[in-house]
C-alpha cells in the first residue's frame, strides 16, 4: 500500500511508491481528511494520476520527498508552505 492515513498524526503518508491504484485511495483520503498534511519524505515516485490528485486537491505538505526528481520538478507545484 503506497498511501495510508495516520490517525494520530493526522497525516496522509505517501510511502515509497505511489502507484496508479493509490491515486484513487489518495483522493479518498484527501477528501475525507481535508485538514490532514501530506507526509512524503520517503516517497520515491508518484504516479501521474496521483500527481493529478495533488494538483487538483492541493493538500498541504508536511514533508517533501528526499528523492531528487520529485523535489526538484514536482514539489514546486505543491503547497509546501508547511514543510
Amino acid at each position, binding site marked *: 500500500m503506497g498511501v495510508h492515513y495516520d490517525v494520530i498524526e493526522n497525516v496522509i503518508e505517501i510511502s515509497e511508491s505511489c502507484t496508479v491504484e493509490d491515486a484513487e485511495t489518495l483522493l479518498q483520503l484527501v*477528501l475525507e481528511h481535508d485538514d490532514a498534511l501530506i507526509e512524503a519524505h520517503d516517497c520515491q*515516485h508518484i*504516479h501521474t494520476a496521483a500527481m*493529478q490528485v495533488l494538483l487538483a486537491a492541493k493538500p498541504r505538505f508536511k514533508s517533501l520527498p528526499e528523492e531528487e526528481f520529485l523535489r526538484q520538478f514536482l514539489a514546486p507545484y505543491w503547497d509546501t508552505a508547511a514543510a
Partner: protein
Amino acid sequence: MNALQAQFIAESRELLEGIGEAMLTLEKQGSDADSLNNLFRLVHTLKGNCGLFEELRPIGSVLHCAEDTLDALRDSGEEISSDSADILLDAMDFVSHSLDSWESGGYDPEAISPRAKQLVASIKAIREGDAAQPANQAIEAFVNTPSSTAQTHITGWIEPHLSKVAQQQRDLVWIHYAPESDCFFKGEDPLQYVRSVPELEYLAIETINPWPAAQDLDPYNCNLTLTLASRATEDAVLLVFDYVKDQIKHEVLSGSLCTGEADTSSASASAAVSLTPEGMLPITEASRAQALRIWEVQLKIMTLNAATPTWLGRARAAVMAIEQLSESLNRSAWGDAAKEALASSEANNDPTPLLSWLQRIPEELATSINSAEAASATDHISPNVGAGKIAVPAVSAEKAQPDIAPKAPESAASSVEPLAKAEKAEAHPDGEAKQVQILKVPREKIDRLMELIGEMVVAKNSLPYLAEKAETQYGVREVAKELKSQYAVINRIAEEMQDAIMQVRMMPVSSIFQRFPRLVRDLAKKLGKQIKLEITGEETEADKNIIEALADPLIHLVRNSLDHGIEPPEDRQEAGKSLEGTIHISAHQEGDRVHIIIEDDGAGIDVTRVKRKAVEKGLISEEKAASMSDQEAQQLIFLPGFSTAAVISDVSGRGVGMDVVRSAIAKVNGTIHLHSQLGKGTKVDLSLPLTMAVTNVMMIKSADQSFAVPMDIVVETVRVPADAIHVVQDHKMTVLRGKIIPLRSLNDMLHLGSGQVPNEDNEYAVLVVKVNGESVGIMVDDFHSTIDIILRPLEGLLQQMQVYSGTALLGDGSVLLVLNMKEVL
C-alpha cells in the same frame, strides 16, 4: 488467462486480420492516404494494446517500428513495394504467432527477441531505403518551423540557464508531451517517462482543463501536458518516449544558438544575455533594437502563465537578464530598479509589481520602434514574438494573462485534439447511438442460451402428451383442448426463439474468405504463378460452427487449386490460356443449405494419371480402374492415402489429402462434389447445412427401442413383403422399381440380438437411405413420425461409440439415440 488478456487476444486477432487486409489493399491499389491511414491506425492500436503487457515488449518493438515506417511512407506518399509489403506481412505473422504462443502459455520473450530484432532491422531498412529522405525532411521542417513547444517556455527558461548551456556548447532537446486522456488505462505513467529522461533540465506541468472540485475529480483522466528540456542527445531523449511517440513534439535547439555567438555586426545577434558589452553611449540603433528585444522577452516571461507556481524563478531570471542588459549598456539604474521591483514582488508573493515595472519600457529603448523593426532584429529564440505585438503591453498581469497565457493550453490542445478527434470519429461516426448497437458476447453465453432454448423446445413437446393423457386417462376434454391451444402459443414462441438464436449464431462466410487474398498472394508468389482471385457471395451466412469447421478444408482446397490446379505461366501460354490463372470462390444459399464453390481454370484432373496412381498405391484393382468412368475416377482423390503431387511442396501434399477434407465436411453433415475437365479446370462444390443446431430426424423402432435417423439421408420408406426379399450369397436384397437394393437389418448391425419383426401383413419396414452415394435399405420394425431435435453429442465413454451421432430428449422425457448411418453400415 485473465479477462484482460482474453480481451486483448481477441482484439489483437481482429486487428491483425484488419492489418493483413489493409496491406493487401494497399499493395493492390497503391497507397492512397485513406487506406494508409487506416493501416497506420490499426498498427498503432495494436502496438498500444501490446504496451499493456510488459512481457510483450519485443512484439511491441516490432509493431512500433512498423508504425514508424508506415508513418514515414504516409508522409512521403510513396507506394509500398511488394518487397516491403512482404516484410511487413512477415512482421505481422510474427506478431500473430507470438500472441498465439502467449495465449497457449508457451511464450518466452527471450526466445523471440532475436527474431524481433531482426524484423525491426528489416522494417527499418524499408524506411531508410526508400523513405528516409522525406521522413528526415519532415523532422527538419518541424524543427525549423519557428513555432510551438519551446516557444512558450523557452523565453521563460532559457536566459537564466544560458550561461550554463553556453559553457557546455550542447544542444537542448525540448519535448512537449500531451498524454492521451486515457493513457493511464494503457499502463502509461507520463511522469515515469519524464523522470527517465536523462539530464532533465526543466519540467513544466500544465493542465488542459481547469481542475474540477476535488470530489468531482477523476484522477484517471489525464488532464496534464508536460513540457521538458534535456541536455542529453536527441536520440536518448526520444528513446524514452518511444511508446508514446505520437503524443510528443520535440525540438532541438543547437548549443551554438544558445551561446550567442551570432555575428553581431549583421544585427542579427541572438537574444542572449552574454552579449559583449559594447559600452557605448548613446545606445546604437542595432544594440537598442537588441536590448528592446531582450526587454520584451523578459516581459513576456513574466506574463506567461503568471499563475503557475514557478513564477518566482522566472521573475528572478528576468531580473537577472535586465541587470546584465543594463550593465552592458551602462544603464545600471535599470538593473537596480528591476531588483527593487523583484523584491517587492517577492515580499507580496505576487508577480504584479515586477510585471508593471517591466511594462514601463525605458524611453531610450522604446523610441523608434518602427525603425527597429525595419532593422529586422531577427531573433532566433522567439521569432514569433514580433516587437509590435508586445510593444503595447497590457496594463496589469491580470489583463495580460488572457492575452498570452492561453497560448500554452492552446498549443497543448492542438496537439491532443487531432488525435482525440480522429479516435472519436472512428468510434462513433453517427454519434453515440451507434456505439451500443453491437455487443461482443462470449460464445459460451450464446451456447448456453441455445441450450436453454433447446430445452424449452423439448419441454414444450411434453404438452401434447399431457393433453392426450388428460383426455384419455382422466377424461377431461376441455382441459385437453385448452392445453392444446396453449401449446400452440408456446410452440410459436419457442420456434421464434429458436429462429432468433440461430440468427445470432449466423456468421457471414466472409470471415473465412478474408484469409484467402493473403493466402493466394503468398502462395502465388512462392510458386511463381500469376493468379487472380475472385470472391463472390461472401455475405452468405451460416452457423458459426459450420463456418469454423469449414475453414481448414477450404484452405486446403484453395491450396490444391493453386498448387495442382493452376499451371505455371509458361504452361498456360502453351495451352493458349491467359497467363493469369483465375480462382473463383463463391458462396450462395440454396434452401436450407449453403453452397461453397471453388473453381479454377487450371489443368484439371488427369484421370489416367489418377487411376494409375491409385492402382500403384494399391487403393483399387487394375480391373476396377479400367471399368471406372472419368467422373468416378476423379473421386479417387478423396481416398485416404492419395496424393498426386510429384513433388511434395510445402504448399500442399503434406500427407493430409482430400480425404481429410471430405471427412471434415462430412462431420458437419456436408457433402463435397468434384467435377473436373482436363485442361479446362476443376470445380469443387461443397454443400453444407445452414445450421447444425436443429436436426430433422425420422424416428424408427427396432427391438422395442426408439432410434432416429437424420432425414437428409432418408430417401424413402417402404414396406417390403417377406417374399420379396431375396438372399444372394448370404446378402439380403430386394428389387425396388427395377433397381436392386441391398438390405441390412438394423438389429443385426447393432447386435440387438433379436430378429426384425414384420407387421401383421408380413411386411418388413425398410428405410431406404443414401450413404456415400449408394442406396441401402435398412430393415427396422416400424417407422414413426419425423421431429426436430437438438442433437447433443455423446459425452464421456459413450463418445467412443461412433454408431451414434448423438442423443436428444423427447417430450415424454425419454432419450432418443440418433444413428450415424455411415458408421452403422
